[in-house]
């Protein structure tokens, strides 16, 4: 079983604690000149995304987590699993509800996602920061109205509900920031 010593700690290092995989967000080495050294870390639980603080005595060991982040293409959903594919090997991975729950509304076929695998199984999915999606439902556009700030609700092809400016029409493709869920612009014509 691979382990890491606290002296190997750095941002991005992944290890297991209390049965869950964690990644180090921030590591600070604290040591009085003539005393005990500690590693003060902020770590993110890769299952829950919760960030906690923890202090390790220098020299302590943690169990390495077999966690990998791989770019994959989203394929389809079958009601139980969401399927992704590694574009070079064509190897497919099925992600369960828990892994996709935060990003379900940003899953679009053939789009690239970062899939975090833990012990070979998808643990979480990170969407691209920007995604282009088609509007499937919204009130008719008000031509010429480009007033700043005025918006109306709209639903996109993945089911996400967003706010768009009044001039946007059903059937149009718009660019969205997946981190905030905000409309950015109309997509440029292909």
């Amino acid at each position, binding site marked *: 079983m691979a382990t890491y010593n606290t002296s190997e700690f750095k941002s991005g290092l992944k290890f297991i604690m209390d049965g869950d995989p964690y990644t180090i967000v921030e590591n600070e080495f604290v040591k009085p000149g003539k*005393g005990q*050294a500690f590693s003060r870390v902020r770590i993110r639980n890769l299952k829950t995304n919760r960030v906690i603080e923890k202090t390790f005595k220098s020299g302590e060991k943690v169990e390495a987590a077999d966690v990998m982040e791989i770019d994959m293409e989203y394929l389809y959903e079958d009601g139980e699993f969401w399927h992704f594919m590694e574009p070079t090997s064509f190897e497919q991975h099925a992600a369960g509800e828990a892994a996709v729950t935060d990003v379900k509304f940003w899953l679009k076929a053939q789009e690239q996602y970062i899939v975090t695998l833990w012990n070979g199984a998808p643990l979480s999915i990170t969407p691209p920061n920007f995604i282009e999606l088609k509007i499937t439902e919204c009130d008719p556009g008000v031509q010429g109205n480009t007033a700043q700030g005025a918006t109306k609700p709209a639903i996109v092809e993945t089911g996400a509900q967003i706010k768009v400016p009044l001039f946007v029409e059903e059937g149009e493709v718009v660019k969205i920031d997946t981190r905030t869920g905000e409309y950015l612009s109309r997509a440029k014509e292909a």
Partner: protein
Amino acid sequence: MSWKPATAHTTRQLRAQMLHDIRAFFLQKNVLEVETPALSQAGNTDPFIESFQLNQEIEQDNSPRYLHTSPEYAMKRLLADNSGDIYQICKVWRASETGRNHNPEFTMLEWYRVGFHYHQLIQEVTELLLSLLPSVEKNTVIIAYKTLFIDTFGINPHQTNQRELANCVQKNISGLATNNLDQQALLDALLTHCIEPEFDKKSLTFIIDYPAEQSALAQLRTEKNYQVAERFEVYLGTSELANGYQEEISYQRNLEILDTENAHRKTNQQTIVTQDKHFLHAMKAGMPVTSGVAIGLDRILMILANVKSIQEVINFPWESA
């Protein structure tokens, strides 16, 4: 990977000016600049400091050498030979100390004042630091280790026990397991996590009179029911700048300290370090009453250059050395 220095040119100029100012300070005070070996046959036995050990690949002599972690032992040999007041500016090495405030290779200023009481040395350290650091305000605080622990936790650190300290850590520091921490580690955890963050960021704080177990090579003083180590540490905010002692001059006690340190290493399954016999012989010959202090000069430079990490004041820090 970049070949370029990690420093700004202005930082290099600040370092050169700082070294010049320090030398001028000691010249004016008639303290002699000296040099001692960086590579020694003996190492630092202190269980909280790890030396780099080097092997010589020659047949005639395959005994290891240690890179010094401070020039303390050798400078005390000079003191025992009646060198009088001395200072040294040198590189020192401490294995596996890396972080925002630590680089395993760093520059130390160490000096000794014969006949000084450690409170006199505190005055001189203040004088030097305030002259080097014009941005630091002059309302220096000198506070006893005991007062800090009583004010913050209601615990007398000289008369406490492991259980009381473990409870205190559990209450005040989230996410630190106490089961494998001894009494000193618990005190260090409370000091670094809860007390240091409260220190003034604009003026110096001196902590004085440490628990006897943390004496290192400092002299002990007997209070009513316990002993304290006549030691001080200097901080600006949480940055620890210097560490000074009323030096222990008894041969017997210096021998005991070195033995205890190696015994501690054995218990914790750390490498046993070759004791400095030359140092012990010098102590037997007799060292005058002296106070001594060491300052981490890279941390002084961090303040001068107004940067957040030590790597920004070292031309080629550990990762790119």
